[in-house]
């Protein structure tokens, strides 16, 4: 079950598509559900499937196909570092080392205090700001330096 606020947001998305095409809102619905719950459990995905009138398997397919959905529980904050070519040229490997050392975990892992999950990302379409990362999917931080990373980590309690 999702909160009335999330449901209202999903309804707004459904209205963007022709009446018989509720399934088109599945990507937004999963995003909205994830913002509320932190990750997409089977229960949450089943709820979305029911709400949109889709087979549950079709929802699981979408949730596992797109990279930004969390299909397992994770730390309080997710940091996705772009390591693709332009970011790599501008020092993403050093930033990656710094993050791994600070958090004590590698890509795809969660820090021991459960504050952070670190992920490796692909090009985010913002290579002019390289190197960069995404925080919890919806906030981008560019021109990363080890110092800037430290202050971001500090701020994210």
């Amino acid at each position, binding site marked *: 079950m999702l909160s009335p606020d999330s449901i209202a947001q999903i309804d707004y998305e459904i209205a963007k598509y022709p009446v018989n*095409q509720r399934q088109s809102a599945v990507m937004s619905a999963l995003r909205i559900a994830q913002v509320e719950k932190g990750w997409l459990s089977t229960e949450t995905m089943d709820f979305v499937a029911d709400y949109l009138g889709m087979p549950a398997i079709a929802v699981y397919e979408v949730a596992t196909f797109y990279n930004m959905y969390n299909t397992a529980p994770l730390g309080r904050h997710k940091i996705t570092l772009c390591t693709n070519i332009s970011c*790599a040229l501008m020092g993403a490997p050093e930033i990656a080392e710094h993050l791994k050392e600070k958090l004590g975990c590698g890509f795809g892992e969660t820090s021991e205090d459960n504050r952070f999950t670190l992920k490796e990302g692909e090009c985010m379409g913002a290579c002019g700001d390289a190197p960069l990362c995404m925080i919890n999917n919806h906030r981008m931080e560019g021109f990363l330096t080890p110092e800037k990373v430290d202050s971001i980590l500090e701020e994210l309690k």
Partner: protein
Amino acid sequence: MVIKGGEVIFNTVHLPESWKLSTYVANGGYAALRKILSEKTSAETIIAEVKKSALRGRGGAGFPTGLKWSFMPRHFDGDKYLVCNSDEGEPGTFKDRDIMQLNPHALIEGMAIAAYTLGTRRGYNYIHGEIWETYERMEAAVEEAKAAGFLGDNICGTDFSFHLFNHHGYGAYICGEETALLESIEGKKGQPRFKPPFPASFGLYGKPTTINNTETFASIPYIIREGGQKFLELGKPNNGGTKLFSVSGHVNRPGNFEVPMGTPFAELLEMAGGIRDGHTFKACIPGGSSTPVLPAEIMMQCTMDYDSIAKAGSALGAGSVIIMDETVCMVKALERLSYFYFEESCGQCTPCREGTGWLYRVIHRIEHGQGRPEDLDLLSDVAHNIGGRTICGLGDAAAMPVQAMLKHYRHEFEHHIEHGKCMV
């Protein structure tokens, strides 16, 4: 990051809050839409104007826009759709984000003009997942345009109606492929469809659909307002207009630069502050990660347009210029790119699903000192067997960089294999 303004799309970026409707209108915005609506300009006239402008698809393929528009069935009873591909995820590409960020109404007006021309009443703008703030900006711009009567029912008091909606992606490079993008809007995995049928006959929800890139749509208001001829003359024959070039990598001032088509590459490099201080220019990937790499000497002779870069053996692509200096190991660079295509292959076609894994693993072992002498032939063979054997272009996109790297930098790969380490 630097933004260099220009005549067509970044004409207002120096103004405060350039993204606001009021700024746009005060600088000639929505005049083109108003004009065609009040004069009831025919679709043929508009398409002829777009053809005259020599505007070519800015998403990477460079297909003539006017011609694409003429494929759309004009007299078709039932729904037709207009779709904007703002799913830019090709490494090195970051121009559409700035268009939506700094001049979203140029995109909206361009789409409204296209909708009027093609007889579509509904459109979707598919935005790359990782740029949430840009999605929010577009949502706000659509609301502004609706409130001002430039979108919705009875636009500018006429009987023309067009409803535009933003669709937010959530992280899949393949959705930049137009039919995968349509699948994605339909709420499915983004797996490309067989073509034909092409979207102009069987597109979104199985209906006729025209898909263009963000920059392509955003160029339309200028063409209608100032005329196709003027746009054409900004660039060069067959390569009309200005174009946004995204310059990233080893330059002093990375950024987006709106310059005329045909601008010498050397000038663009200078605008980006030149190669980062104390280093020398080694190589350039001129149009996004899937376009073949070119050595500095060749690149310095090019002008920035479709024809010149094609003649040099690469492609202008989306105008995504990745600059590498002498510190870059080409084996390592290719390893990262191959990993990307391996990771992003949708898995439908065997040559791509398996082949991208082969490419990555072989390059990975070369990079890590375990390469074998026969590996270079193996790489060419695998790349050759992916190219042209898949439903969509991702397979080719994975194969092309490999072939170009081996052509120009074979010695670096050989050195890795022979000595187990890097030569740079």
